[in-house]
């Protein structure tokens, strides 16, 4: 049987990609971004969509924070970092995100 695995803990140095069975796309019928996962559908809010659009299997979470900090100069970088890590950790715990580059096998 397959072995057990460890929980993915997200930090600013983690590189994230969508898990192979996750579909993050725009739905033309409902005119909003959706995340499709096994037997569930998630409707990320605007802020989450903006973060997820930067998840590409290459950039570190800290790099995502930098990009957002450049867009929202009125918010402190540490505050943005805390929100981004928490949101990505939640999606990692739901099995939507995996560590590593997109080229790695599922």
């Amino acid at each position, binding site marked *: *049987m*397959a*072995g*057990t*695995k*460890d*929980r*993915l803990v997200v930090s600013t140095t983690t590189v994230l990609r969508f*898990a*192979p*069975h996750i*579909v993050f*796309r725009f*739905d033309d*019928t*409902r005119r909003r971004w*959706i995340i*499709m996962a*096994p*037997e569930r*559908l998630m409707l990320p809010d605007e802020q989450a969509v903006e973060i997820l659009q930067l998840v590409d299997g290459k950039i570190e979470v800290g790099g995502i924070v930098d990009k957002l900090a450049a867009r929202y100069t009125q918010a402190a970088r540490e505050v943005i970092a805390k929100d981004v890590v928490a949101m990505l950790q939640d999606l*990692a*715990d*739901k*099995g939507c995100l995996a560590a590593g580059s997109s080229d790695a*096998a*599922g």
Partner: protein
Amino acid sequence: MPQDSIQIDPPLALLAELTHRCPLRCPYCSNPLKLERASDELGEAEWIRVLDEAAALGVLQVHFSGGEPMARRDLAALIGAASSRGLYSNLITSGALGGESELRAFAGAGLKHVQLSFQDVVAESADRIAGLAGAHERKIAFAQAVRAIGLPLTVNVVVHRPNLGGIGRMIDFAVALGAQRLEIAHVQYYGWALANRAALLPSRSELDAATEVVEAARERLKGILAIDYVVPDYHAVRPKSCMSGWGRRFLNISPAGKVLPCHAAEVLPGLSFPSVRDANLTDIWYRSDAFNRFRGTAWMAEPCRSCERRTVDWGGCRCQAFLLTGDAARTDPVCALSPDHGLVEDARRKASAAAFRYRRDPATLPTV
């Protein structure tokens, strides 16, 4: 009287019941007592047209189910058709037919996920519940093939009095199989399960002990195994929001093409369910009498009608209301506010260690 306007949103998911054929004979089978014949099943071209119509209607996910959907030889083609239309496809299987070569074809066609049922974690008990010798070992091999291919796996275990005590071992079993999700679903009392209710319904203390095990495991396995847990509504105070409300999120298509708001709805009298052979899915969803009958809140009687939860639980389950009271428009008797709640209390009292009867056992075709 409060009235809530009805906004009809497009459905999120389609449950495609490809066939009622299945090698297992589980005593809680959710298929109707009167199974549809193989010769009446929709053909491949008809299903592909249905998938077209579903995508156009706004459906996002398709669950290929049954019966045992792998009894259909065209399953890979149907998965491919769903994928090419942007539909997220999920296979709900017993794992008792086929294995790695079929799974490779499904993955190649774009299958995203497999939900595999187990009847228990111990082969002897599992095979006894499934009514098929050797089934459990085949399912373990099937689970290994799913993981070897890299498809995500949900293990589904239907629990009831005879196997509820093993719930901790079921959780360990799912982790060892490499599952990402475990769905522990208490039997819901329709069809074959309703006929076997006295043998299947656990006591309150048995249920509470099981729930405690699940809650502890959820905390311990966070990020490793997600556990979905469906409790038996017979022990609840408020009803489940059945299908998230009639005709609000889901539609179900039977093997012969009947379009239903849920898989049990055919038991309801006085409703004529349209067929995909006669009408377009969009017409059926928005305009058919069957889908509009229990939409919204206008159909409700008291105590639902003025209840602050009327748009939370949508009156509970129409099928359960009918099966227990004979009237589909009454409040689900599971609700403690229902004037018929005594029926559920009575069922709880009558639950016992009686023996169950298998699906398709002609000598014991149940009357309710």
